[in-house]
């Protein structure tokens, strides 16, 4: 997981590969010469075809079905009109999108998802930054242990870790029982089934995604820059604010994107920890699909969610490609 999350920023100092035929590595040159284009083409084709079949095509189908009409049938939508004689007519209707625009439920869910994801990302950044900073400043042997401790929860079931918070936050849960036994409160605090518990759940689940890219970034920082600042009479706090913080912005962006993007479409956390008024778009899509069985509207919700996420996903892809090109 380190590799995935740390992939946010390209290693500094590596020159960008130059354009032109020299850029092709020895692998491709040799492959061309020895086995001809066929062998190389075959190696490329296997994962390429898989991804086109099971990643790209499904999206095109979602888009097509978002333009279909709901029908009482199996599957429950109507896209092709059978005209007889082997002829089909594609019915395109924008009704599902108009329906999304017309019902305030969807607009509220969108705004709410973005709000909850943004606030959780900010909290995760505030909590994660000191942890990443502390790990990057530890001795190398301690560093590996701490990193392992950050990654370890990620390997245990996400569902069960979210479930653990129910026992902690509920009315007769650990926190409320503890506070009541201390005599600090008489009535249990409403900690569960509201926006607060959703924030806790998202920050908790996605904290490693924030810490790892931040750590990768901070660890590469040249300590001589801070020494130079100190030699020139800079106080540590000021050196942190004017040297470390600006240089760690790429790590902050990578970490924030890795938290924000999945948080917007999150289903499990609002479903288990959120209250009935915690509307998030992932949950709306799920209900539309499983409870209302309206596949065309669920598809339209998915397309609309993609439009919302296309900008953050593009930024993330650019980070990936920078690393790819380096």
């Amino acid at each position, binding site marked *: 997981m380190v590799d995935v999350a740390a992939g946010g920023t390209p290693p500094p100092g590596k020159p960008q590969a130059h354009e032109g035929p020299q850029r092709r590595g020895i692998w491709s040159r040799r492959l061309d010469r020895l086995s001809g284009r066929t062998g190389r083409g075959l190696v490329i084709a296997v994962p390429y075809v898989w991804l086109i079949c099971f990643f790209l095509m499904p999206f095109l189908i979602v888009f097509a079905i978002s333009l279909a009409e709901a029908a009482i049938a199996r599957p429950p939508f109507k896209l092709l009109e059978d005209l007889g004689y082997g002829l089909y007519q594609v019915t395109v209707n924008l009704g599902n999108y108009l329906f999304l625009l017309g019902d305030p439920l969807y607009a509220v869910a969108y705004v709410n998802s973005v709000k909850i994801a943004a606030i959780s990302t900010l909290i995760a950044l505030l909590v994660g930054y000191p*942890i990443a900073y502390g790990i990057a400043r530890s001795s190398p042997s301690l560093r590996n242990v701490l990193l392992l401790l950050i990654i370890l929860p990620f390997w245990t079931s996400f569902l069960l870790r979210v479930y653990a918070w129910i026992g902690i936050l509920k009315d007769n849960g650990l926190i409320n029982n503890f506070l009541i036994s201390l005599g600090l409160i008489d009535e249990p605090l409403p900690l569960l089934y509201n926006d607060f518990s959703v924030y806790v759940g998202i920050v908790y689940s996605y904290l490693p995604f924030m810490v790892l890219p931040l750590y990768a970034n901070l660890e590469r920082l040249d300590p001589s820059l801070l020494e130079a600042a100190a030699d020139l009479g800079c106080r540590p706090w000021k050196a942190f604010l004017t040297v470390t913080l600006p240089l760690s912005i790429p790590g902050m962006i990578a970490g924030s994107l890795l938290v924000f993007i999945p948080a917007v479409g999150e289903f*499990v956390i609002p479903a288990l920890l959120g209250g009935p008024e915690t509307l998030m778009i992932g949950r709306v899509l799920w209900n539309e699909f499983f409870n209302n069985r309206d596949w065309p509207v669920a598809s339209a919700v998915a397309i609309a969610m993609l439009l919302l996420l296309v900008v953050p996903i593009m930024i993330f892809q650019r980070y990936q490609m920078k690393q790819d090109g380096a």
Partner: protein
Amino acid sequence: MGQRRSFFVLTAMCFGFAFLYGPIVSLIVYSFNESRLVTVWAGFSTKWYGELLRDEQVLDAAFLSLKIGVINATAAVLLGTLAGLILARFGRFKGRTLFSGMVSAPLVMPEVITGLSLLLLFVSAEQLIGWPAGRGMDTITIAHITFSMAYVAVIVQSRLSSLDESVEEAAMDLGARPAKVFLVITLPIIAPALISGWLLAFTLSLDDLVIASFVSGPGASTLPMVIFSKVRLGVSPDINALATIIILIVTVFVVIAGVLLTRQERARTRAVQQALQDED
């Protein structure tokens, strides 16, 4: 001033790790609780473990999840290694941008969208070509391979780009064919990345609720699907027992893998340093 800041950082780290591990510890502690009320301590007991082992539904689901996880991880490592190799070593080719986009997009795609889109694919394909006939283990496995291979590809790619190509080039200059170079030189070097990729793909599959719920059919319930339906009805101690077992297994595996990989890495670094010194 410096002292105060490191104190602040230390406190923040302690708080952070407590935040990460508190819930996990509470799950484990209350799995040994006598009482059905999960958060009221009523004495030590292991009865929830016995109850869990008698629960047919949980056992069947766990077996199905393990089966899917192993097939998924193996296939994802095969496909993901090819994809990572192509991205790191094949230079430019037609459609490279689309390819690299398709490899990294599943990493950030919301699960509800991936799940919905794959389900609609399977339904449409069944109507058009009669495959897949019904949904269940096969469709879940295909869906899992698709997103797990992206993770493996990124791990393999970053491993390969951090490696010097000169060893591979030397082998080729000595006349080895590309396939042989890959099997004899590249594969052993990236083996640790393949192991972590396999483990990651296995865990992702074992953990997935949303995508499996979309693409599964009647009769095929994975472990997360069973847990989710139980948890929705409220907190229950046998789920705590299940969580404890999973956490225990995962911790043992990850720690062993971590120790082995670090040791191997160290031996390799030492061998390289030795070789460089001998050259001097």
